[in-house]
Every structure is written in C-alpha cells, then in structure tokens.
C-alpha cells in the first residue's frame, strides 16, 4: 500500500476545524453563466494585469542583474602598447650586431615573461608578468639572421609551449606543448600530427637602437633592445584573431 504525499490543489474544504471561513465557491469553469461580454472582458483584464504587474515587479531586479552581468561584454583587452623585453644580449641572443654572420643552421631561442602594468577590475598592478613570449633568432633561407617573436601560448588550448632543442641539428628543434602535444618548428609552423589548429602566433616587434653615447665594450653588447607589441589571441581557431 503506498501513501501518496498530501495533495496541494484546492483551498481546504469545510471539514477542517478552522475559525475563519474559507472563500466560498469554486473556481469558475467554462460552463458558468457569465452575464455578458462586459464581465468577461473585465475578468480578462484583471487576469491580464495580474500577470503583467507581477512580471514587471519580478523582472525589474532580474533585468538589473542581467545588465550588470553583461558588463564584461563591453570590456575590451587593453590597447596594445610596445613593451620592452630587454636587449639582445640580456635575452641571450648575441651577437649584438644584426648583420653579423650567423651560422646557417644555428638557432637561438629564449622564452621570457612580458612585464607590464596590469589592470584588473579595481586594481592596477605595476610591473607584473602578463604573459610569455618566445624570441627566436635563426638564419632564414638566405642565411640572413632573422628574429621572430611569438606569443608562447599554444593556439590549441592556451598552455605555454616549451622548447625542445635538437642538439645535433639545431634548426630541427621543436616547440612542444606539454598539454596535448602540439608541435611547432623553430619558425613557428605546425608540425603534423598536432591538435593545434594553426601555427604559433607571431607578434609585431621592433628592434630599437639604444644609444646613450657610451662606447665601451660592455655597452656595445647592450645596443639593440627588443620591444614587442604583446597581444593574446583566441585559441581553437584556424585564423589568428586577436582577443578584443
């Protein structure tokens, strides 16, 4: 024998011991004799407003909440400015002379945190790491030394890639992502098989000549500074799209 939970349908009937009288009568049915269209219209209006008024009252706090909830949609990523990474020497990418002979298959790679002021809601954190970049110096097809700066985040799901050097043939070295094994060559191109949808994201950068008038050997070493326009890109897409 199963016992059904108490039903909660109609107001209690007159069998209970209450001192107050429950509303008499029963809810109207369609076969009731309504006295004309006026009554019908009036009761329709009452019902209509009952619904509308209650909804408006309830919607107001909800809409206020949703409005505030959608705030991030109007926040855009900070305007990209050039950020100083360091001198070629500090980055371990000597020789400092850009035109110096660079052995054909030699590759120099360094990974560095990008430091800038970071704004986070109500705080500004001065000089904080906001991401990581890879600076790669290698010889291009014509043997001329070329420098590329990549965002170190893997375009697959955003983990930071590591550099795996091939000691016998440096130009065969790879960037490898520890999360899902995405693989890239030293020029950033995808190496199949890889789950990544595109190659490493290259960043705009400038080499600024720092001339403070000193000519000692120490200062010659620190001639060229690498400045990068740091940006983040959406993962999982075939095209490189900057985060807005």
């Amino acid at each position, binding site marked *: 024998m199963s016992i059904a939970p108490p039903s909660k349908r109609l107001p209690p009937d007159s069998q209970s011991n209450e001192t107050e009288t429950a509303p008499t009568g029963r809810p109207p049915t369609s076969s009731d004799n309504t006295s004309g269209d006026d009554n019908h219209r009036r009761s329709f209006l009452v019902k209509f407003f009952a619904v509308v008024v209650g909804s408006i009252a309830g919607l107001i706090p909800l809409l206020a909440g949703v409005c505030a909830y959608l705030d991030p949609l109007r926040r855009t990523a900070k305007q990209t400015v050039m950020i100083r990474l360091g001198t070629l020497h500090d980055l371990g990418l000597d020789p400092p002379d850009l035109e110096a002979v660079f052995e054909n298959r030699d590759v120099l790679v360094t990974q560095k945190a990008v430091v800038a002021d970071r704004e986070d809601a109500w705080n500004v954190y001065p000089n904080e790491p906001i991401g990581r970049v890879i600076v790669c110096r290698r010889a291009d097809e014509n043997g001329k030394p070329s420098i590329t700066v990549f965002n170190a985040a893997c375009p697959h*799901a955003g983990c930071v890639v590591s550099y795996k050097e091939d000691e016998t043939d440096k130009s065969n070295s790879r960037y490898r992502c520890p999360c899902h094994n995405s693989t890239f060559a030293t020029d950033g191109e995808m190496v199949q098989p890889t*789950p990544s949808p595109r190659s490493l994201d290259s960043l705009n950068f400038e080499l600024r000549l720092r001339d403070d008038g000193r000519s000692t050997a120490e200062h010659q070493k620190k001639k060229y500074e690498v400045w990068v326009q740091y940006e983040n890109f*959406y993962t999982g897409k*075939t095209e490189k799209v900057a985060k807005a």
Partner: protein
Amino acid sequence: MKSLLTWLDDRTGVRGLIRSALFENIPGGSKWRYVWGSTLVFTFMVQLITGLFLWMAYGSSSTTAWESTFYIQNEMQGGWLLRGIHHYTAQAMVVLLAIHLIQVVIDRAYRAPREINFWLGLVLMLIVLGLSLTGYLLPWDQKGYWATKVATNLMSIVPLVGEDLQKLVVGGPDYGHHTLTRFFGLHAGILPGLLIVFLVLHIGIFRRHGIKAHRPELGQAEFFWPKQILKDGIASLVVMGVVLFLIFLPGMSGDHTGQSLGEYLGADLGAPADAGKPYDAARPEWYFLFLFQFLKLFEGMGESGEFLGAIVIPGVVVGLLFVMPILGKWKLGHRFNLGVLATLVLGVVILTVLAKVEDNQNDDYRKAVAEADEAAKRATKLASHSRPRIPVEGAAWMLRNDPAALFRKHCGSCHDHFDPTDPDATENIVAERFVRPEIDKQTGEIIRDDDGKIVYQPSGGSNLFGFASRKWLTGLLDPEMVDLIVFEVSEKEEKEGSQKKVLRAPYFGNTIHARHSDRMVDYVKNVLSDESAEDIQKIILALSAEAKLKSQKISDEESQADILIGRDLINSNCIECHRFHGDGPVAGEEDNAGPDLTGYGSEKWLVEIISDPERDRFYAGNIEEGSEEDGTPAVKNNDRMPIFCSMPLLAGQNTLTPRQIRLISMWLRSEFWKLEDESKED
C-alpha cells in the same frame, strides 16, 4: 507528550508528512543496490555544510583566494579537515553519480512513467559536474588556474556566441578578480540553488511513482524505515570513511617532522596562480582526465578537430544519455542503452588509464610536477614562516619576490650563498663558475705574473652566506682565506690555458682586488698578521657588532667590553683606508680608500651598497688609471657589480626596487625567516 504532538500536528500536519516520508513502500524489500541515490543526497549535504563553513573563511578575489585558502589549510583549527572533506567528497560524488546512473539503467528505471525523472537526474549530474569545474578554480593555485584556462579557452570555439560566452564566464577579456567572483557566484549560489530545485523535483517525482524495484517477487515488501534507511546510512558512512582515509593517507608514509598538520594532510594546494609562469604540469582533476586524453586523439585535424572533440562528441554522448528512456521502450533499445553505457564506462576508464600511463612515462611532465611541488612548498613556507608573510599585493607577488630567488637571479651569477657546514641546505645558492686565463689583446699570449703563474680573469664575488657575522669576518681577516681560490683539477692532463672550474673563492679570491697590491688582500696577508690574535679577535667583534645582527644580539651585549677595545683598534689600524664613525677617507675622495666601515653589514649599509656600490662611501673611483697611449682601460674599484637601484624614486628604471633590495638585505642578515619560538607564538 502525545498531546503536544497532536497540537503541533493539528496546525502543521507534521505527522502525515513524517509518515509519508518514512513509510515509502519498497516492493521486494530493502536492497543495497538502492542506496546510491541516498548517498548522493548525503554527499550533497556534506558539501553544503562544509561549503558553508568554508564560505565563512574564503575570499574570492585574485589577491585573497589563494591566501585565504592557505590560511584555512594551514592556520585555522581543523581547517585542513574541513577543506579535505569538501575536496574528497566532491570526488566521491562523481563516482557515486556514475554508479547511480549505471544502476538506474541496468534496472530499466527510466521507462514510463519515469522518463522525466531520468532526465531530471541527468540535469542533476551536469550540475554536479559544473560544481566540480567551478570549485577547482577557487583556490586560485597554478593547477586550478591553468586547468580552468584550458576549459574556458575551449569555450570560444562554440559557433556564433563563443567569444561573448567566454567573456561572460571569465568576466572580461582576461582572467582576474571577476573570474573568481563569477565562478564563486556559480559555485556557491546559482548551481547549489539549481541543484536543490532539481533535487526536490527529482525526489518528489520519484516518490510519486515509487521505486522501480529489482525483482520484487523475490522478497517481501518493506518500508523505507528502518531497513533501507539503515542500509543507506551504512553506505553513507562507508563513503565518509573513504573520504577520511584519503585525507589521512599522506600521513601514513614519509617523514613529517616539523610540519603542521595542514602541510601534509588533506587536499593539496599548489603555488599561487601566475599568468607569467608556465605550468607544464597542468592537468584537469582525475575525473576529467579522459576528456583531456580524448582531445589528444584529434591531432592533425585543426580547428574542426577541436570542435569535434571538445563540443560535438561530448554533446552526442550526453544526447545519447538523454535519449535512453525513449530507446529503452523496446528490449533491443534497452540492450543498446546498456551497450552505450558499457562503452562509455570502458572508454572513460581506458582513456583515464592511458592518460596516467602516458604521464608517468613522460619525463618532462614528471619534472614539471616535481617543480610544481617545490614551488608549492616554497610558497607555503614563505607565507607561514617569513617575517613579512603575505603582503597585500598577494601571494603571487610574494613568491615572485622570494629573496632567495631574487638573489639567485640578480646576485647569483657572481656571489654564492653557501653554508659550508650544511651543504644540503635548501637556500644554498652556488653557480658554476669558470676562470679563463687573461690573454694579452695584442700578442694573444697568456698573461703571467712575476712568479710565472697564469693570471686568470676574475669571474665572481664573495660568498655572502653569513655576511658580516663574526664567522664571516674571521675568514675575511684570515691570510689563508682572504684571497683563496680553489680550482677543480681537470680530469685530463692540466693543459696550459684551459678553462678551470672554480670550486671555492669565499672572499676576494675571484675578484680583481686579489691582484692589486697595496689593498686589503695585501694588508691582511702582510700587515694584519703581525697583530696579536686577541687583538684581531676584538676587531672582528667590534666590526661585526656594527651590523647589529639579531642572531648576535645577546653575544654582542655580552662582549661589550671587548667591542669597545676593538673599536679603538679599528681606529688605530684601519682608519688609514676606511672611514669609521667620522674619521678616515672615503673612496670617492681619496684613491686607494676602502668602503666605509660605519654600520658595516647593517640593513641600511646593505641596502645602500646594493643600490649603488659605486657611491663615494663604497667602491667609487679607479684602482688604476688607464692609459690613453697604449689603450689600457682604467681598472675600476667596483669590480663588475651592477648598480641595482640608482634612481629609487623612478619606478621601472631600476633593476631592483628599493623594496626588493630590502628583502634581500633582510634575507642576507638572517632576519627574513621567523625564529622557531616566534613561529610558535602564532
């Protein structure tokens, strides 16, 4: 008593409620296979209770999340137990969800009229998984941060709304305060609220239809109370037992002397999240590892591969689950459902095992995990046992400005910090240094000194462990030690001009100062040694007292008499080259002068010399002037030490900030860490 109950019952109907709750009919009798739903209700209650109490201690901003979690885990009474229960019960819930689903499908309890209830159950499952995902981020440690970052990055590939969806979930274009507030709002507000609503519906409708009994003809019908409730209770107790076992498991092995309970028991806490520090050990929690492994299969398929693996296929799987009640109308359909379930379970188990095996064989991963553990321990140690503890900038800042790390990065290329009495000390910093022979630039020949010995290029500074302590100064003023440099004997025959690895050079040995006469090295070897040992000892006491080291406070007080004599000795012996309390030259004014000995090794002295060693007070000017004619460069008094903070008021222009230099100075003076008895006071 009975009349009181009647009075209550007349006004609330409570008797009927209790009766209907307890006397649910179970055809065929109570069974163990029915306990799983109740264990889920139990674990949810556990999470609610522990969650509420955790809520009273947790702060959801990017500078308070890790910090408050650290505090709960390590410093609050029973905090580790509370957090441990919350953490492991969450994991138990995932397992119980699976078991409950499997039992329901096997017993065909999704058939009419129970289809809607089955769907409600699936919705509950998704809510619980959502709770797990949102909860994992809340400690804001490296593990949770990077794992969730991957998950939210995947969101942007949802067509049309993906990018906006990501922004709403993350709270902006980047991770930060609002990511935490939103995730916490979901985790502590919206999702539990939804769960309660759906749970009420789920249980309500379940009671409406009654239990789908398993072979009811085999036993006699029983009521829920007391036998099924007892079984449910035992199962819940077992679940709690498993949770407690997992909490106390780390304590059953390994040496935990000196550690507080929270440091090794209960849930672990990684290093504070840092966007600038890659985390190669990033992995989702174990119950999502199969998804992680699954994504690896979509290599070479690009963007569509990721879309397929992360959104389409999981979507199809959930769809198949939802469709089960409809398919299950037919016997074949039921078999198909069982097949789908078995495949799923098998697939999940295999993928999880594969993920674990691959990780175990991956050396890079294991190295990353070991490094992550080190960083976590270091962060906890800094937060608990350092004097400054966690600054208002947060724990990530604290870890980035760990004075030992700052020293290693900025000073370690020249200076060691090595305790010879404790070679395994964790804060020993020793760099590999090599010396090369000096080559004459014009002739290309190796330069030798008057005795024919090869002159090597200096490549380092002094060992700064215990700087300005009595022991350190004793070595400095020891003629054997002052210019000591020990090379490693090479395995091959010692060739002329080969590079030699430096093993020890505790004072001037690896600097240019060892090679110039009429300076400190000369003085210690040839002049000071004429003084009596007692006098030298008093000089050491007096000089060391200038530093006002906390560790020497008592011994300095006790040696006051000797210190006074020592000061007089300094005045008579050292004033020719060193300023000392107002008397004597400074290097900026007079050639050949040494550094100011006033307040030698004190915090102020250290901060000033690190900020700018070329100040007049310290190592200003040249030891030897250069020559224009033969192009020999001048030899600076400051042998290669950089100027770390020349413009303290201009932020961003200096290598180290004044605050960082202060931290390094505190650390060098052994005042960065709290002493044992100070820690006990907390």
